[in-house]
C-alpha cells in the first residue's frame, strides 16, 4: 500500500467515467487537488459537476477510472467507506439538516456517534464552530426556525465538526435567497483562507474568481478548460467556455 505524503495530491482523479443508464455523466475526468488548494468547478447544468463530488466521497460508485483520497482508492470494493467519509466533508444544495435536532445537536451528532468522542469536548467544539459561522445565538434553534442561509452555515459547521481533510461544496448557494448568499460565501471564503482544502461547485462566478486557486470548466462530462482564475476569465479559448461565460457574466 503506497504511503501518502503531504507533497502528493490530496485528491488524485484519473480518467473517471460514470453513466446513469444510457446517459454518460462523466466521460474521462482527471485532475489533482493539492492540500490547502481551493478548486472551483463551473459549467452548465447536467455537466456532471455534482456527480463528480458524490464520487469523491463514494456516495455514487464510478464505472471506470480511479479516485485517490490521501492515496486511498475510493473505487476499491474493499475500501471502508465510512473511514473515507470521515476525511471528506460535504455540504449540499438543500442543506439536509436533521429537522428533529437543534443546530447544536446537528453539529454534535456525528462526532459523538460516529467518532465516539467525549460529549463534553464535542459540545465545546460544536459551540466554537457555531461561533465561527456566526450562529452562536441559534444553538438551540431547530432547522425549521432558521433561514436558508443560517441552515446552510449550520450544515458547514456540522461537516467541519468531523475535522475533514477536504470539504466538498455542492452548489451550496443555489437554493438561497440573494440576500443570504453572501453570508454563506463569506463563511466559505474564511475557511479557504484558513487553509482548508475545498472543492466548490458553484454558479457564483465572482466568488469563484475571488476564492479559487484553480478553476475547471466542465461540459458534457469532460473538463473543457481550466486555469488560474485570472487567465481563465481573461482569455478563455474554448468556444463552449466563452459561450457559457457570456451567458452568465
Amino acid at each position: 500500500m503506497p504511503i501518502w505524503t503531504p507533497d502528493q495530491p490530496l485528491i488524485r482523479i484519473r480518467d473517471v467515467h460514470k453513466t446513469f443508464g444510457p446517459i454518460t455523466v462523466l466521460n474521462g475526468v482527471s485532475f489533482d487537488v493539492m492540500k490547502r488548494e481551493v478548486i472551483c468547478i463551473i459549467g452548465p447544468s447536467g455537466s456532471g459537476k455534482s456527480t463528480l463530488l458524490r464520487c469523491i466521497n463514494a456516495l455514487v460508485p464510478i464505472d471506470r477510472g480511479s479516485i485517490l483520497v490521501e492515496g486511498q482508492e475510493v473505487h476499491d470494493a474493499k475500501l471502508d467507506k465510512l473511514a473515507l467519509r470521515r476525511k471528506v466533508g460535504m455540504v449540499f444544495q438543500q442543506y439536509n439538516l436533521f429537522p428533529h435536532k437543534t443546530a447544536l445537536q446537528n453539529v454534535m451528532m456525528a462526532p459523538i456517534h460516529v467518532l465516539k468522542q467525549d460529549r463534553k469536548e464535542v459540545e465545546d467544539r460544536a459551540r466554537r464552530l457555531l461561533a465561527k459561522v456566526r450562529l452562536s445565538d441559534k444553538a438551540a434553534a431547530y432547522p425549521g426556525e432558521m433561514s436558508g442561509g443560517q441552515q446552510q452555515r449550520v450544515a458547514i459547521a456540522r461537516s467541519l465538526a468531523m475535522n475533514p481533510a477536504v470539504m466538498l461544496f455542492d452548489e451550496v448557494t443555489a437554493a438561497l435567497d440573494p440576500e443570504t448568499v453572501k453570508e454563506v460565501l463569506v463563511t466559505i471564503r474564511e475557511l479557504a483562507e484558513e487553509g482548508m482544502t475545498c472543492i466548490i461547485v458553484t454558479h457564483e462566478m465572482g466568488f469563484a474568481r475571488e476564492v479559487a486557486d484553480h478553476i475547471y470548466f466542465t461540459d458534457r462530462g469532460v473538463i473543457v478548460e481550466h486555469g488560474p482564475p485570472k487567465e481563465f476569465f481573461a482569455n478563455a479559448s474554448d468556444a463552449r467556455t466563452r459561450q457559457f461565460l457570456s451567458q452568465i457574466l
Partner: protein
Amino acid sequence: MRRESRTDLPVLLPFRLGSAPPASPTWRPCAWHGLLLAAALTMAAMAAEAQAAPNVPSIIATLLKWTPLLAVGFLLNVAISVIAMAIGTVFGTFLGLLQVSLLPPVRGFSWFVTQFFRNSPWLVLLFYCMLLLPFELRIGDAIVPLPAWLKATFGLALPVMANVSELVRGAVLSIPLGQWESSEALAFSRRQTLWMIILPQCVKRMLPPWMNLYAILVVGTTLASVVGVNESMTLTGDILAAENRTELLVPLYLYLLLWFFAYCYPIARATVALERRFQVR
C-alpha cells in the same frame, strides 16, 4: 367599465398550501355521532319502557344495575387492545424496517408476511390463534397458562403488526433522500442512520395513523366475543339471557355502543388535532 372584483385567472385565485384536510377514507367518530347515539338510547329506552310488562324495574334502573359487570368486561376490551397494540407495534416496527432492507430476500419475505396478515380477515386470524395455540406453555418446569383472552390478544396483534409494518415502511420512504445522503456523508452507518435520523422523523408522521389504527383495534376487540372471551360484548349477551326481556335488547346494545364511543372519541379528536398541527409545520 366596471371593475371585476373577482378574477378567473388561475394564478390569482387563493391558493393554500397543505391546508386542505387529507382525503381520508377512514371513518372517525364525531361529536354529533355521540349526540345521535345518546338520543337514540333515550328514545329506545322510552320505547322499551312502553312495551315493558307491569311491575318490572325500569330500563334505566336495569342498565345501571348491570353497569359494574359491563365495566369489568369493557376493561378487558381495553386491556386486550393495549397489549395487542404494544405487541403489534414492536414487531410491526421491525417488520417494517425489514421491508426497507437492502437485501432483496429479506425485503421480499417481510413484504409477504406483511401482506399476508394485512389482508386476512381479523376473525380468521383470531380463530387460528385460539385453535393453534396451546392452553398452557411449558417452559422448563414452569407451566404458563394461556387464557383465552391472551390468545385472542395475540390473534389481534397479528393484523396490527402488519398494519404498523406498512406505516413504518411508508414513513421511512417518505423521508427525503437528502437525509440519507447527508448522514451517509457524515459517515453514519446504515443502521445508525435508520435508528437515529430516519425513524425519529417517522414518529411524527406515523402518530396520527397509528392512533387511528388503535381506535379501530378497540372496536375490533369485540370480535373476541365470537371465540368465547368474556369481554363486554359477550357479557351483554349474558345479561340479555339472564334478564330474559326482549325490550331490553336495543337499549342494552346501544348502551354498550356508547361506552365504546366514549373511549374512542377522545382518541379520534386527538388524532385530528395532531394531524392539523403536523400539517402546519
